[in-house]
């Protein structure tokens, strides 16, 4: 596909993009197409992070199986986000609590820290609603999906 294009803008422009994921993974296409945006954004060397809140926390649930619904299970792609230079994945604690989920119910997503001999480090940070609000306020671009 012709999806990846070299940016023709000033390469020194670096903005903070936050992809906000609020919906269940398979009930609508938003989760899948939001992920596609994040993967493409890596080519532009922007400061990209992701937030999962409301029903969006289900996107990171462990052990997803789509065999019964005839849809593609794209959840393994989240595990590759570290390779796409994503360094921050925020999950809202209140959203987990409200849905009876704990951090242990989420997939393990790691990145290799170049500064420390490529040590594997967790990408997911559990944050409170108030903290996430602050994080949103610090962004240049909010992409709501």
């Amino acid at each position, binding site marked *: *596909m012709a999806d990846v294009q070299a940016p*023709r803008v000033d390469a020194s422009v670096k903005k903070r993009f936050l992809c906000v994921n609020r919906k269940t993974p398979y009930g609508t296409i938003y989760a899948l197409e939001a992920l596609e945006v994040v993967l493409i*954004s890596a080519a532009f060397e922007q400061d990209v992070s992701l937030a999962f809140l409301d029903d969006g926390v289900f996107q990171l649930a462990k052990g997803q199986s789509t065999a019964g619904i005839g849809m593609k299970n794209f959840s393994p792609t989240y595990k590759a986000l570290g390779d796409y230079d994503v360094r921050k994945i925020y999950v809202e604690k209140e959203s987990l609590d409200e849905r009876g989920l704990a951090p242990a119910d989420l997939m393990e997503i790691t990145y290799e820290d170049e500064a420390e001999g490529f040590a594997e480090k967790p990408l997911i940070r559990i944050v409170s609603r108030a903290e996430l609000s602050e994080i949103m306020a610090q962004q240049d671009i909010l992409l709501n999906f």
Partner: protein
Amino acid sequence: MKFGILVNEGPYTHQASDSAYQFVKAALERGHEIFRVFFYHDGVNNGTRLMVPPQDDRNLQQAWSQLAEKHQLDLVVCIAAAQRRGVLDAGEAKRHGKDADNIAPGFRISGLGQLIEAGMVADRLVVFGD
């Protein structure tokens, strides 16, 4: 101010397309610049010239196309989202062996990089969705 616009919902089912159109029109009338309008998810359906709404209703595709012609707007439909939903230009139709295309005048099909670029270039990226 220089705006980038993201339209995430299809016409008629959601108000988002109408709101985006009204916003763009008003911004241009006030002398602002619209760097690009990017159509994603079902928003790509704004760009099919085959829509035929009732005569006493607005025609969103025509509204966009006319606005684009008047102001040289860059209306970009996401290629991956468009292919899923059957919105094709002549080149894509040929490439995929389809017997027709339906992209509307003033719209062009391109990649998601165009959305990221709009975010980088614009002073504000305004998202219209649910």
